[in-house]
């Protein structure tokens, strides 16, 4: 049976056939035919955003919290250019999203037509793949291919640019089963010899560590399950990047905390001192490695990654394993069990004793505030009052983001949405809305800094319109805190433009949007205020005035090795006068 339809209808049909339930978008001249089709059906829900950047971050939040691709629809020209930050964000963090852009009609392309932009040209470096579709007959197939590419191999953003005449024209619809997803079938099974080599090394290692990343989460729930099994059965300590939090539970016995620039002392020292580093779906980012030449000098390194270009890009490894984390871990466990479940018990016991020793430094210690709320304290209370709930956390970018990573715990994957690779201020609010749309009953909190939050605050309108009861937990230090911290520590305390001047009254702002505003500044009112936020059935802007000059520690200044970490003066090490190496 052949089905002829317009390009615009094809778009909607193809999305339905791909199982899409929600599209985040913003209309304009070049996508009107598609909007007309959306109007005439009820299967796909359209969430009208307030800025196209918001649409893309919402699609990202949706994708991260569900594991399914997120979809955004925007118009040509400014609609497309506004989507660029979100695309780049998704590329850096390997998030599967499909962005559809309208384009001027094919016969006008190249004439500097109204709202014409070279969208595929502009977005080529920030998409995994993009297409300009000039023929309606190829439109449906291209959309199916786009979903395939976004979700296979290392996930990422794809974009399809659809000229207006292509949306109007008729052609035969290609269903997903008939679309050729051609040669793009990245390998998922790891080389069994390399896997055996890894097991041999793991059996004898005295100081092994599992260094896990976002790849575990991207691989799917089964991968997280296998990671837990491997870590718990072998007794090897687990650390994770910012992107991988929740893959191994924070309550698990192998958990030693996040590593990296603001990672835990024990996690970074374990990375530095290990003799076997097993990198599972992480990419040796510079925020993790610090100075390359001093990175974990005594270890053999194994790297499991689905993207061959991640191997040896930054750090040379001894055993590369190219494949999907889930598939590889399954084989690792099989081989390890078949060989008799061996580990170096004596070595591991000593290693854990060493790690316990490092933990005693108590690197997250901070001096509690009497009259002012310390940001760490605010997060500890948020954690205590929300633990056990069906909770999702998004963040903005800055100190609050790092404190959230340090002080909130995640026992499940897909519960933590943060802009890691690009560090996009303005990500958290729209991302939290995307999460809430995907999980209407869940508790969704965006841990924000006041400056980041202002970058996409217009999306509160979206939250209101679509009844997304997101909680905006703003740690308001009236500073571009992370910038201020670098200026204090590294630029001679010259605070160049790192003040948040002329801030709005967030409570009035909440009222203006029609939601609830709560302001708190005294530590003794904090719990009640948080409970009030949690009890409110609707979006809340929570203005938590915190200590303005708190620094986020530990910190490894960029370009320094792991063992040259800066610790807070409040860490126990300093109280006892201990000298650290």
């Amino acid at each position, binding site marked *: 049976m052949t089905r002829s339809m317009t390009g615009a209808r094809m778009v909607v049909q193809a999305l339905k056939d791909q199982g899409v339930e929600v599209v985040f978008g913003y209309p304009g001249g070049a996508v009107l035919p598609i909007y007309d089709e959306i109007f005439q059906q009820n299967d796909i829900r359209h969430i009208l955003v307030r800025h196209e950047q918001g649409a893309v971050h919402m699609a990202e939040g949706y994708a991260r919290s569900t594991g399914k691709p997120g979809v955004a629809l925007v118009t040509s020209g400014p609609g497309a250019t506004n989507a660029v930050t979100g695309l780049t964000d998704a590329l850096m963090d390997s998030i599967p999203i499909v962005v559809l852009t309208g384009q001027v009609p094919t016969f006008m392309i190249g004439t500097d037509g109204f709202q014409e932009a070279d969208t595929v040209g502009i977005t080529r470096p920030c998409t995994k793949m993009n297409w300009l579709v000039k023929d309606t007959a190829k439109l449906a197939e291209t959309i199916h291919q786009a979903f395939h590419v976004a979700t296979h191999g290392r996930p990422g953003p794809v974009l399809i640019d659809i000229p207006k005449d292509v949306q109007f024209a008729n052609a035969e619809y290609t269903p997903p089963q008939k679309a050729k997803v051609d040669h793009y079938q990245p390998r998922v099974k790891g080389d069994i010899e390399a896997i055996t080599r890894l097991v041999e090394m793991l059996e004898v290692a005295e100081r092994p560590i599992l260094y896990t990343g976002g790849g575990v989460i991207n691989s799917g729930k089964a991968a997280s399950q296998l990671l837990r099994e491997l870590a718990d059965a072998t007794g090897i300590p687990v650390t994770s990047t910012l992107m991988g939090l929740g893959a191994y539970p924070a309550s698990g016995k192998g958990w030693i905390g996040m590593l990296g620039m603001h990672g835990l002392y024990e996690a970074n020292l374990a990375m530095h001192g290990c003799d076997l580093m097993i990198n599972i779906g992480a990419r040796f980012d510079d925020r993790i490695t610090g100075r390359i030449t001093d990175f974990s000098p005594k270890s053999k390194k194994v790297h499991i990654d689905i993207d061959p270009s991640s191997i040896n890009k930054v750090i040379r490894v001894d055993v590369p394993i190219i494949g999907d984390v889930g598939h590889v871990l399954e084989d690792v466990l099989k081989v390890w069990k078949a060989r008799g479940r061996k580990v170096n018990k004596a070595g591991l016991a000593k290693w854990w004793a060493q790690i316990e020793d490092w933990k005693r430094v108590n690197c997250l210690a901070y001096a509690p505030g009497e009259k002012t709320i310390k940001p760490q304290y605010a997060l500890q209370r948020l954690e205590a009052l929300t633990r056990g709930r069906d909770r999702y956390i998004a963040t903005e970018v800055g100190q609050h983001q790092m404190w959230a990573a340090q002080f909130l715990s995640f026992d499940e994957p897909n519960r933590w949405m943060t802009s890691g690779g690009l560090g996009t201020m303005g990500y958290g609010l729209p991302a939290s809305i995307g999460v809430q749309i995907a999980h209407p009953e869940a508790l969704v909190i965006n841990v924000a800094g006041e400056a980041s939050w202002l970058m996409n605050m217009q999306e509160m309108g979206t939250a209101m319109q679509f009844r997304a009861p997101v909680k905006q937990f703003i740690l308001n230090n009236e500073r571009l805190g992370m910038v201020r911290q670098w200026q204090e520590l590294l630029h001679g305390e010259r605070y160049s433009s790192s003040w948040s001047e002329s801030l709005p009254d967030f409570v009035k702002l909440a009222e203006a949007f029609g939601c609830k505003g709560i302001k708190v500044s005294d530590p003794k009112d904090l719990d009640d205020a948080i409970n009030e936020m949690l009890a409110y059935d609707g979006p809340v802007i929570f203005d938590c005035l915190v200590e303005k000059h708190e620094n986020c520690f530990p910190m490894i*200044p960029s370009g320094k090795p792991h063992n040259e970490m*800066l610790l807070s003066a409040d860490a126990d090490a300093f109280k006892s006068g201990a000298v650290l190496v």
Partner: protein
Amino acid sequence: MSALNIKKGSTSHSAYDLRDSHSQAEESHTLAVIVENEPGVLARVIGLFSGRGYNIDSLTVAEVDHTGHRSRITVVTRGTPSVIDQIEAQLSRMVPVHAVHDLTAEGPSVQRELALIKVAGKGDARIEALRLCEIFRAKVVDSTLESFVFEMTGPPEKIDAFADLMRPLGLKEIARTGVAALSRGA
């Protein structure tokens, strides 16, 4: 390593350390990249080189399989061995790329380039140019009383050598195709 001594804000504590970690010698490699012949693919490949700071010394491209819509891109690039490995890996993971062959690493290969070389002159210089043309097995494809256009095919070094000899004899213009290459043997 306490936060305390650095907290004083001394600028001697530079946070920036931008040293190159492993410096190895640069090598020249010829890569054959088999791609889907669709719009934007060449731009994507070139964008990879410019975006990641890799070198392109020469680049040729043409469709080589009309029914399968495959094009072959031949790139001559330079870099340390680890950079060359990265280039290969980065190219291989691109969605429209079917295969990447490092012809330099995979064994002996034939490399050929075509050049058109315009030389203007009179008298002895003109005769000398024609004599060298014969020695280099170039062809005369255009001539006037005051000029020749030579066509020559060969490895890039041979074209370089010929062009160097033509320079004092009145070299006017040169057009080169860039390298096409195939591995030797079956």
